[in-house]
């Protein structure tokens, strides 16, 4: 039998109809995650055509994008003051009720960012196809699932048919050899990969991350990496499942139990890419060479080692690159050849589907513990889900952050997408653990430096962009 990649195996296992000449493949979808922002028009389409949701048992809805992360009232309810957001949330509630879909409503114990709750519940499993009207659906690929973002027309199609029309993408092996030093994280790996290939470098591809440095990561680090595949242009990124994966899933609410578990693990062990399977392209990175990464520009591909210098547009490869870099540096208020170390910031944001899981909060807390957020800096810590929030509070992490002067908030996308009122003011600088530094992404006129939770926490303490290794080395750090 021909050697196959992980992607090929998952793809072929889900073909209702194979791709043929001028017809795209009909791909079956195992799990469809839904949120309030990209689904209303899809449900409208179903109503207009008199259609049902084909598989409510494979569909799960949450509220995350436009939800406030402000403190609960005395009644335990998170108040929604934005009239438009409130109406949108009501539409989500009505759609879930009318179509028989399970909804994790705002503030309930399992609610959270769509890409945090799937893995958390054990719904995200190896070998599955997973879609959501959200480009960071690539996150779930960390489990060896084929997971990608779709538009609202496709949301309607999956709701009605549990299938998607897809043309087979190309595959790219992304090999990360070597080992990470202390203070350097999964976020730094993925920022380095994107800086290397550029924001469009993975267009048309599905990535498979492999190599010693990837194998050494826990599931949360793997999710951080797969999450940002889309920032390199790839709709999906995958990592072969292994014992780390199985240990993470075991015992979660939706995980198989007993004999089903054994059968599932046996099937999952067949998924990794076979020896001799080929990819359409390959890139290689060495983790030994990595230092903490930070972005300087207005897309995630504009990143550099934190010890580096902002590039000079006059040395750009071609005219369009020079124009892009000039535009980015003007927006960011930066000069060519300057170091970012020591640059004052206004806000530090720890959160988003990239870096809001318990491990991310523990990492940040290691640096924050016993220290204070610098004067004049607003630090927001937004757990990815109510479950993460509860876990963090049981470990006392909320007190670590609050005692340092940081804001400990309710779960949601928050200032990653800045549509819920959590946002930068024009001209403000933020170090953010999120995934996009596009113009205005975190608030109109706001300026974002993307970095790891360690770099964000170190920056919060010093008030200026700081190499986290300076603070990590002061502490016992495992």
């Amino acid at each position, binding site marked *: 039998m021909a050697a196959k990649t992980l992607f090929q195996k998952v793809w072929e296992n889900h073909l*209702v*109809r194979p791709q043929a000449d*001028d*017809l*795209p493949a*009909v791909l079956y979808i*195992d*799990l469809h995650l839904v949120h309030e*922002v*990209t689904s209303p*028009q899809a449900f*409208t389409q179903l109503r207009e055509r008199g259609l049902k949701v084909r598989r*409510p*048992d*494979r569909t*799960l809805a949450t509220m995350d994008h*436009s939800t406030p992360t402000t403190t609960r009232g005395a009644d335990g309810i998170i108040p929604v003051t934005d009239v*438009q957001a409130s*109406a*949108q949330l009501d*539409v989500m509630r009505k759609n879930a009720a009318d179509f*028989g879909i*399970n909804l994790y409503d705002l503030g309930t114990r*399992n609610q959270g960012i769509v890409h945090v709750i799937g893995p958390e*519940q054990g719904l995200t*499993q190896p070998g599955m196809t997973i879609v959501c*009207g*959200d*480009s960071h659906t690539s996150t779930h690929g960390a489990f060896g699932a084929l997971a*990608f973002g779709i*538009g*609202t*027309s*496709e949301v*309607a199609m999956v709701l*009605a*048919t*549990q*299938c998607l029309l897809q043309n087979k993408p190309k595959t790219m092996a992304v090999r990360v050899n070597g080992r990470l030093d202390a203070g350097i994280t999964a976020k730094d790996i993925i920022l380095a990969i994107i800086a290397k290939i550029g*924001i*469009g470098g993975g*267009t048309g591809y599905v990535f498979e991350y492999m190599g010693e440095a990837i194998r050494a990561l826990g599931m949360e680090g793997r999710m951080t990496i797969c999450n940002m595949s*889309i920032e390199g*242009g790839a*709709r999906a990124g995958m990592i072969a499942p292994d014992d780390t994966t199985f240990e993470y899933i075991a015992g979660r609410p*939706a995980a198989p139990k007993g004999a089903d578990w054994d059968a599932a693990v046996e099937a999952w062990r067949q998924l990794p890419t076979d020896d001799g399977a080929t990819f359409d392209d390959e890139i290689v990175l060495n983790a030994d060479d990595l230092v903490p990464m930070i972005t300087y520009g207005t*897309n995630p591909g504009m990143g550099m080692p934190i010890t580096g210098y902002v590039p000079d547009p006059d040395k750009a490869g071609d005219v*369009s*690159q020079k*124009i*892009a870099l000039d*535009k980015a540096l003007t927006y960011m208020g930066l000069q060519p050849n300057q170091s970012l170390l020591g640059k004052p910031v206004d806000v530090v944001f720890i959160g988003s589907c990239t870096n809001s899981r318990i491990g991310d909060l523990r990492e940040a807390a290691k640096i924050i513990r016993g220290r204070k957020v610098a004067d004049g800096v607003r630090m927001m810590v937004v757990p990815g889900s109510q479950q993460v929030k509860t876990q963090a509070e049981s470990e006392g992490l909320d007190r670590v952050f609050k005692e340092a002067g940081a804001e400990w908030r309710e779960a949601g996308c928050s200032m990653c997408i*800045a*549509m819920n009122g959590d946002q930068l003011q024009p001209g403000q600088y933020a170090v953010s653990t999120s995934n*996009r530094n*596009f*113009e*205005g992404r975190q608030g*109109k*006129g706001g300026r974002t430096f993307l970095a790891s939770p360690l770099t964000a926490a170190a920056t919060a303490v010093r008030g200026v962009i700081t190499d986290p290794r300076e603070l990590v080395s002061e502490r016992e750090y495992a």
Partner: protein
Amino acid sequence: MDPIKSFSGKVVALPINDIDTDQIIPARYLKVTDKNGLGAACFADWRYDADGSPKPDFPLNQPEHQGAAVLIGGHNFGCGSSREHAPWALVGAGFQAVISTYFADIFRNNALKNGLLPVVVDEQTHQQLISLAQEDPNTTVTVDLATQTVTLPDERKVTFPIDGFSKHCLLNGVDQLGYVLALDKDIASYENSNPHRVNTLLAV
């Protein structure tokens, strides 16, 4: 959806690389529950001052570019978020086609489902069109999906790629959802031979 016919339209250039969907339609405009009215917010942060008045130097605001139906962006148009609000906003702003050297995957898919043609041309043609549009705001091209050609002002025709199925659907107004709904037997057969492992209704 209505079938797409050959059309001619004025061209406006935004020769900026990596135009992301947050620029095409900023997230704060996504709190809607329908598709209408997004055209006014298309490129809102580039188009309007803080007080909401149009910036005179932004091409889409200039009188000579009013009525443009073809937008030329830089390389990698439509990267970032999966929001279908991006093509809804572009269509709402009057565009029928976007020309670039390549498009982000999700944006391209979304555009094709809304009758907005993502037209990929080679770098030389791309550059030539940008120059023409900047020199003469009345620069007009003809886009013909049937022959997959763009006819430039000098009558030169350049071809563009499109997958056969999308082309067929756009030309004939074929409803893709209807096509898949008609495969119900195949889907049911797949479901019968692939029993599912998770049940989201039990996840409480």
